[in-house]
């Protein structure tokens, strides 16, 4: 297995939970915190940490909304985040295809 520096891979997106989160957000307008936590099967604190790092990088936007007296956090990908995610995935696909893991 060869290893090398690859243009397009984003270390901020690469951790599994963040890659999964960005993959979900690429398919929708907004995702609610609790739904994201359940789909990714992570704890509140782990998801909060990922959200904090991705939003600091400008990849995500967080919106607070109160529904029936409960505050809920809605997550959406920014244009910058979506672009970085698509580039990251394209690079992963190129690598995996080269190795014969994908057709």
């Amino acid at each position, binding site marked *: 297995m060869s290893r090398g*520096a690859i243009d397009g891979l984003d*270390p901020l997106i*690469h951790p599994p939970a963040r890659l999964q989160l960005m993959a979900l957000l690429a*398919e929708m307008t907004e995702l609610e915190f609790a*739904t994201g936590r359940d789909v990714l099967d992570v704890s509140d604190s782990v998801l909060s940490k990922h959200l904090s790092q991705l939003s600091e990088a400008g990849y995500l936007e967080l919106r607070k909304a109160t529904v029936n007296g409960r505050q809920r956090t*809605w997550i959406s990908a920014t244009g910058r985040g979506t672009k970085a995610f*698509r580039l990251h*995935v394209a690079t992963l696909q190129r*690598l*995996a295809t080269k190795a014969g893991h994908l057709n």
Partner: protein
Amino acid sequence: MRIGEEEAARSLETMQAARIELARRARWSMGRHAISGLLMGLLVASYALPGGWPILGVVLCMLAVAVVIDHDANRDGLVVSGSRAGPTRRLTIGLGLVAILALGIAVFLRQRLGIAWAPVPFGVIVALVCTAGSMRWEQLYREELAGVEGRN
């Protein structure tokens, strides 16, 4: 950043697992599809009403759409745009064109030929087409999530 081919393949599999889980959750009831179709149908059928009432009908339908979207978001914890890129967008545009065409014919029949009730059957047709279209939209969305390794 340096990773190997095996790790790249594993990352894609991990990502796909989340998409498959989302596909599993992205299900709407038959009633929810019927409400979508009904609102589109009412939008067309409301033009059968006399005077300025069709405008009120349109406003009420638009408000109802906003309520349905808000209800979906709070129940499902996610918001998916009907006009999102991919095969679903073609279907959304197609359904919109069917509704516009039906409305155009209904208004023509009413205003030019004096058939005041014409928007009603066209509204029924639009309601049925849009209900079926909504079900197909969900199916396409789930298929796309479950079967593709990410859109580029």
